[in-house]
């Protein structure tokens, strides 16, 4: 098999993982994954449950630090800087590499507060007026402004599931991240809400590097330009999305996308 992945190697990738291994105690969850993430493309991680795609996603902004038994080997860089180096501040890293979770998890505070919280703790707003601007801009980018502009003081938890997830995206956008990681952002949403999120991902592409984990292969095909197929902790295949779905090079990829297992 001739693997021509040269076309995917970028000169200056936004994020780059080299031979990353993740262990939970003695159990190895990720077995040497190397991948580049750039700003111009949405990257999708697909694979069956338990294949390690979410685990790998969480190593990209060190959310795995909260799991006491987790251990990461290898190198992950953000703008050429190793994010696991002792000099890297994890709080700043997570502001630069934002995250949207599987289940919408707005804070039990007002819509305004949900957006304003991040900019406030990072000192991004100079005064109330500036904060208002940030909140409006973030909500507009999240495609939620028109729906909530008259009730910014309502609780964020009173919104519908799809609105809550867009609020969470807006919350991540508000701190001006460079990369946004999305961990199955639509798995708890209905098809209409899902369509809205996918539309939003299209609009955000280019401004932010986006990595999305999804169970849904059609979704990966719709929203991404690059797709990585994970299986049993290995990165089986990484390529241009249309190639992966129409012309997979690996037998396992082919089996998975044709529904043979997963």
């Amino acid at each position: 098999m001739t693997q021509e992945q040269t076309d995917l190697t970028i000169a200056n990738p936004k994020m780059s993982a080299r031979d990353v291994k993740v262990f939970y105690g003695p159990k190895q969850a990720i077995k040497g994954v190397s991948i580049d993430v750039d700003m111009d493309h949405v990257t999708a991680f697909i694979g069956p449950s338990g294949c390690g795609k979410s685990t790998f996603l969480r190593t990209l902004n060190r959310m795995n630090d909260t799991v006491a038994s987790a251990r990461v080997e290898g190198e992950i860089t953000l703008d050429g800087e190793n994010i696991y180096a002792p000099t890297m501040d994890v709080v700043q890293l997570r502001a630069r590499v934002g995250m949207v979770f599987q289940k919408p998890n707005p804070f039990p505070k007002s819509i305004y507060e949900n957006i304003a919280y991040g900019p406030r703790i990072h000192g991004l707003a100079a005064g109330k007026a500036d904060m208002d601007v940030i909140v409006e801009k973030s909500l507009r980018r999240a495609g939620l402004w028109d729906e909530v502009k008259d009730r910014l003081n309502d609780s964020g938890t009173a919104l519908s599931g799809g609105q809550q997830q867009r609020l969470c995206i807006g919350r991540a956008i508000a701190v001006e991240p460079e990369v946004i990681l999305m961990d199955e952002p639509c798995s708890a949403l209905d098809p209409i809400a899902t369509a809205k999120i996918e539309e939003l991902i299209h609009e955000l592409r280019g401004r932010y590097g986006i990595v999305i984990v999804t169970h849904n292969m059609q979704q990966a095909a719709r929203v991404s330009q690059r797709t990585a197929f994970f299986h049993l902790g290995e990165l089986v295949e990484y390529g241009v999305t249309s190639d992966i779905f129409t012309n997979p090079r690996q037998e396992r990829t082919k089996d998975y996308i044709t529904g043979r297992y997963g």
Partner: protein
Amino acid sequence: MTAQRLPTDWKSDAMRKRIARRYGAERRFKLAGLAAVALSAAFLAFLLFTMMGNGLRGFTRTEIALTVDFPASPLLLDPNAITDEALANANLPMVTGEVAKKALGGDADALLSPTAWISIRDAIKADPKILSRTETIRVPASTAIDLAAKSKGSPEAEAEVARLKQQGVLSTGINWNFLTASDGTDPTQVGIWGAFKGSLLTMLVTLLLSFPVGVATALYLEEYAPKAWWTDIIEVSINNLAAVPSIIFGLLGLSIFLNFLHLPRSAALIGGMTLALMTMPVIVIAGRNAIKAVPPSIRDAALGIGASPVQVVFQHVLPLALPGILTGTIIGMARALGETAPLLMIGMRAFIATPPGGITDPATVLPVQIFLWSDEVSKGFVEKTSAAIIVLLVFLLAMNGLAIYLRNKFETRW
């Protein structure tokens, strides 16, 4: 050969019986629950009824209208120079006795409370002009008269009451003295204020010590402590501390705070410190449970936009856990408020006739005061004991009410 299974007959007798049994079980369970509730309600009603019956009398007192002819009395006071010193030197108790003998006849000393002169002093202080005329002043009656007038006293006292009633000088007034005075030797002069203030100060010390320490411990154990053998030992120790009999904490306070640190004896400070030892484990346990109940997704959300662990704890976890922590704190404080045994060990059972001025002054607390009065021989203390219990219960109810208010205020609706 396998037997052919017939389709289930949902209408068969066995089925019907099973259904009837199921309904019967449910009915019996409901009845048992109802009976339990009724029984506890009956006990509570009985308790409240007897307490109120006895205790409410403690808030009233029998008064005798004493007509004082000031110009004719042996009182030597200049109406234009009424000072506390002049009043103190005027020998009012003696004058009151003589005036009473003239006005009421009989053994006047046995009719009036030993504190009757205070009413006269206060009347003069309020309006010195009465010194030049005859004035009727209501003074508290003695314990014997008070008891005979309110319920049942000795035959002699009953006779005196009948005589006084005929003179039309007996009346019933609210015993403000009970709410403003402290412990005393005569039931007509005792009050609850000293013990109430002592309880207030003790609770304040307890709260200020146990709440921050308890919450900080709970936060550390839940959010920061590694899972290791020594955190397991701490956890087991705290759970055990919550179950230690309270008198042991009293002994601990005695040996450490008094004998080792030589802090002031009988003071609210020591009482508060001892009770804080007892309350803290309760707050830690309730706090840990409340913190555990905060959904992990909120932690993820905050961490995911770059909140530091301290920001996550203080801006997200703690506010969400606060209602639960407050509930635990109030349960602990309510228990501490009613606690008697450990305070006896550190000398808070002393006879203290002045309210404490601060946390280092000798003080007593409501439950100890109740315990002390219940031990008194004089019959007048019975109603005072019940009245003090009512004050304690009202204090408890107020505290619980505050807790419910705070919990609802901070509760987050999802």
